[in-house]
């Protein structure tokens, strides 16, 4: 095997191996565990950076391993997967640092960090998968490795949330499995290719292909939290903040959205999807999700629940971009994959800081928090403005491309949806920002635990700061050749290559 085959495996192994070792360490071997975690995360970033460089000079990183007939385990680093992998790698490092600070002195950290690494392993694998089967394998692995994280606290509520999560995720996975097998019996093993591979299918099979498409969307939609498959997501908020952060920004929700992108572009092909007439329904579902999520978020009193509904809404931007199709909308959808991740993780980090340092969990407890924790709330503010789509944040860039993409595809109503959602975002985010900065703080915080010199411990403080700066940079420097936008454009160039 050459380096070209090893590299994808190494990228996966860089989190798998630390994760596996952690299980066998003692609960009290904190230093070693931390070192392993951070080393794994850093190595992963380096490997991904190397891979990015390689792919940009047209190196082909792929590895294939036959499991059984028609079932190949195959990894391939294409532009789209690298986008996702890079996101996962960077945010994993930050989340790990954050989690180390967040879970200081809490029990079962070994279990937590073990599964945390495995969760990222699954995400990375899913990003690098080069056929539906490999994708499916990692998708299911993701479900399993997230469950222990969701129920980490072990309280009755978290157990209930875990059950609900499993109910949805596993059912979705089962439907997905059926669809994948069905597709395979119709057209043989399905590899991802830049322009989709089903366009040449016998027209007699179109009916089946439509049904399979619907099943695939349902399967991925569960994780992507498309309405009405979103029920589990707000419940899963009982998990510790780093988990929510990872869940919403990178791992679970994003995996679903990524799956939909793969299906539409790399399996069916955008053109063929339009021919089948499945794009408009998908776009409608996404639109309904966007509006519904935003609308529900307005009425949430619990901060994390509000953020959860916001995620439901925001992730569907990706789906919407995908479903509108056309190069510009696709760019918007794909770039939002990264942008939403960065912004949402900031929000969750900040929410976690509030809960951990001040005991603030409800929206109405946030009054004056900006004075007590200025850096955290500054990060929160930037990310929230990004969510609304205020220029020059990352959110604006995504929204802009979605908007002009919709115009390009003559789907004018989509612009209405975007605007309505932005307004709703403003309605549920701006009062928080106002309360944080301009309202006077209470006499005593619900559960204040001072940590160290800064407003909270450095491990909790810097991750949101970094992601907030990223949120700004991704927007301000969107035109740079190394920005997410540029990479998304490159991907789109491949998808729409003649």
């Amino acid at each position, binding site marked *: 095997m050459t380096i070209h085959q090893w590299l994808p495996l190494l990228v996966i192994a860089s989190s798998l191996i630390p994760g596996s070792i952690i299980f066998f360490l003692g609960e009290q071997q904190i230093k070693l565990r931390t070192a392993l975690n951070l080393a794994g995360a850093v190595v992963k970033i380096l490997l991904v950076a190397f891979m990015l460089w390689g792919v940009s000079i047209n190196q082909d990183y792929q590895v294939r391993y036959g499991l059984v007939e028609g079932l190949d385990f195959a990894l391939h680093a294409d532009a789209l997967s690298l986008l996702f992998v890079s996101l996962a790698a960077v945010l994993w490092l930050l989340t790990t640092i954050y989690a180390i600070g967040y879970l200081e002195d809490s029990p079962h950290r070994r279990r937590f960090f073990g599964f945390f690494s495995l969760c990222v392993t699954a995400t990375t694998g899913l990003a690098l998968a080069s056929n539906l089967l490999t994708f499916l394998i990692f998708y299911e692995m993701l479900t399993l490795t997230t469950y222990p994280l969701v129920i980490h606290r072990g309280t009755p509520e978290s157990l209930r949330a875990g059950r609900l999560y499993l109910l949805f995720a596993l059912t979705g996975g089962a439907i997905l499995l059926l669809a994948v097998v069905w597709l395979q019996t119709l057209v043989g093993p399905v590899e991802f290719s830049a322009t989709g591979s089903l366009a040449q299918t016998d027209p007699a099979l179109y009916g089946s292909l439509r049904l399979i498409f619907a099943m695939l969307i349902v399967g991925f939609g569960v994780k992507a939290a498309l309405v009405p498959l979103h029920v589990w997501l707000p419940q899963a908020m009982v998990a510790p903040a780093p988990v929510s952060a990872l869940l919403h920004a990178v791992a679970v929700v994003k995996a679903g959205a990524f799956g939909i992108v793969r299906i539409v572009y790399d399996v069916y092909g955008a053109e063929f999807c339009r021919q089948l007439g499945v794009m408009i329904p998908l776009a409608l579902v996404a639109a309904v999700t966007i509006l519904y999520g935003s609308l529900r978020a307005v009425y949430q009193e619990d901060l994390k629940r509000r953020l959860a509904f916001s995620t439901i809404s925001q992730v569907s931007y990706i789906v919407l971009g995908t479903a509108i199709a056309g190069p510009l909308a696709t760019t918007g959808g794909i770039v939002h994959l990264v942008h939403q991740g960065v912004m949402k993780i900031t929000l969750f980090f900040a929410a976690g800081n509030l809960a951990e340092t001040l005991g603030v969990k409800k929206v109405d407890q946030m009054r004056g928090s900006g004075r007590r924790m200025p850096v955290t709330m500054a990060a929160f503010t930037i990310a929230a403005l990004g969510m609304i789509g205020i220029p*020059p944040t990352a959110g604006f860039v995504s929204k802009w491309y979605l908007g002009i993409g*919709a*115009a*390009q595809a003559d789907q004018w109503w989509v612009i209405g949806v975007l605007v309505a959602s*932005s*307004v709703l975002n403003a309605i549920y985010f*701006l009062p928080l920002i106002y309360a944080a900065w301009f309202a006077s703080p209470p006499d005593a915080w619900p559960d204040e635990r001072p940590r160290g010199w800064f407003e909270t411990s450095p491990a909790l403080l810097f991750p949101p700061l970094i992601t907030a700066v990223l949120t700004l940079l991704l927007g*301000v420097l969107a035109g*740079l050749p190394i920005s997410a936008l540029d990479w998304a454009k490159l991907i789109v160039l491949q998808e729409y290559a003649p």
Partner: protein
Amino acid sequence: MNQILLWTMLVVPLLLAAVVVTRADSPILARLIAWAAFPGVLLALVPPFQIEVPWLLLDSRLGVDAVGRVFLGVTAALWLAAGWYASAYLANDARRHVFQFFFLLTMAGNLGVTVAQDGASFLAFFTLMSLAAYGLIIHDHRAASTRAGRVYLMMTIGGEMLLFMGLVMAFHETGTLVFSDLSSKLALSPLRDVVLGLLLAGFGIKLGVMPLHGWLPMAHPAAPTPASAVLSGAMIKTGLLGCLRVLPLGMIALPTWSDICLVLGLLTCLLAALIGMTQRNPKAVLAYSSVSQMGLVTVCLGAALVKPQAWPVIGSALLVWVVHHGVAKAALFFGVGIAGTRMPSATARYLITAGLVLTALSLAGLPGTMGFAAKTALKYSTANLESWNEALAWLLPLTSVTTTLLVSRYLWLVWPGRHAGHGRLSPGMVIPWGGLSMTVVAGFFVMRWQTLVNPAWTTLAPSDLWIAVWPILIAVALAGTVILVARILPTNVTVMLAAFRIPEGDLVIPLIATIYRLRRRRYRVTAVQLPQRSRRLQQALEETVVPRLVQWLDRMTRSLENDLAAGLLLVLLAVAMLLISMT
């Protein structure tokens, strides 16, 4: 060099804002903040240029052009003045860091808007300015300020969305965001009217054209005086700048749009003045005066859309107007702060009173002031509009009357010495004010001397003088009559009349109240009824369906999983298999 100046102008306020956050409190920092807009003034003096900045946002273009230059100059100068004024005005404010932070951010946005040459960066700076200004508006945290801030924010976000939609569609129609291409291509696109509708509405909110003006009379009085000055003097002009950037001015006639602009402009001009006269807060009066003045600006735009060939004239008239209104309005706002202080001497009081009166009347077009040039320019530029000639001939002088009445009201409210002043009159406040007030007069002579503007606007021909002066005289007479009548009337009647007052923000107030009522009702629907329904379903499941299922399973298990049943099934299966095999 120019580029360095440009970047300095944009980055310095942002950097200073970052420093202010750390609550560093040094005299050097305070001085730096006061001077932060200075690079902008310098930049307004360099020849026009444009640079491409592909890495910034969506392939940005920044630069100074003939139009932007004027806006930049006024804006930077006003911010500079406001910066000086603020350092004195807020010297004893414990929360001045907060003010300075938002002040700098707003400044960065406002200066940026004037040099943005493409839609995305324009929108970015525009938003930065608009959102940061929120912090200025609610600075003192009074209930009225908070409410004003809320309305401001709602309308700003609304405007933001309109602009977003408009720009998205404009980009789709024209394939570019660079303004110079955009407006010309937009003129020919089939969706022109929709795009223009969205963009004009978006900019109209900032400009304060009725009926989109609601935030303005609420926000301007709420903000601290230096902030009000830039809000009224500089920031609302960005709405005009936006219109100039996207409208295909001088290219084609758009009769529908011109009608809309003219009607709305005139309405705004007259109505705002009338409402403004009922105000008791001098800053509110000034705010309505701004709305009213922006109505005139809208009339100009309408005129340009009727007669494209007249655009060069109208355009320069507008620029003169921008400069004049910016300077005069800022001076008047500063004046509110100055007039309220304890005068050190009678001489000072006279001087200040004279300055205030001069500036106020300049706004009404008093000959010899910059306002005269502006007014004349306006009159010339709107002449010869086929269908509107008759109406304008009457309406424009009428606006002069209303404006004069409005500024009279202002002067009545702030007249130095009428109330016991409080606070010391500090040079930091007087110098910026004095500078601006002098500019109001001096500007006229500068304009005369410069060939920048049409020489006709600055000739002091008797006929022009008379046309400018008679509305003012009528208004002064009217004002005098009102004062006299008020003296004569019994006290209870004046009190009763004085009680009649339109709240700041007029139309918005009932609207907001309705929205809040609706929201409360909606909240009840979603928050209470939905869980109830699902709880009922859950109850039904737990109490009937599940127990029945369990019962049935128990019965099945009992009858299936025992030796007897198994023995029988064994035979049954064997026979079945045999039969199946044989068929």
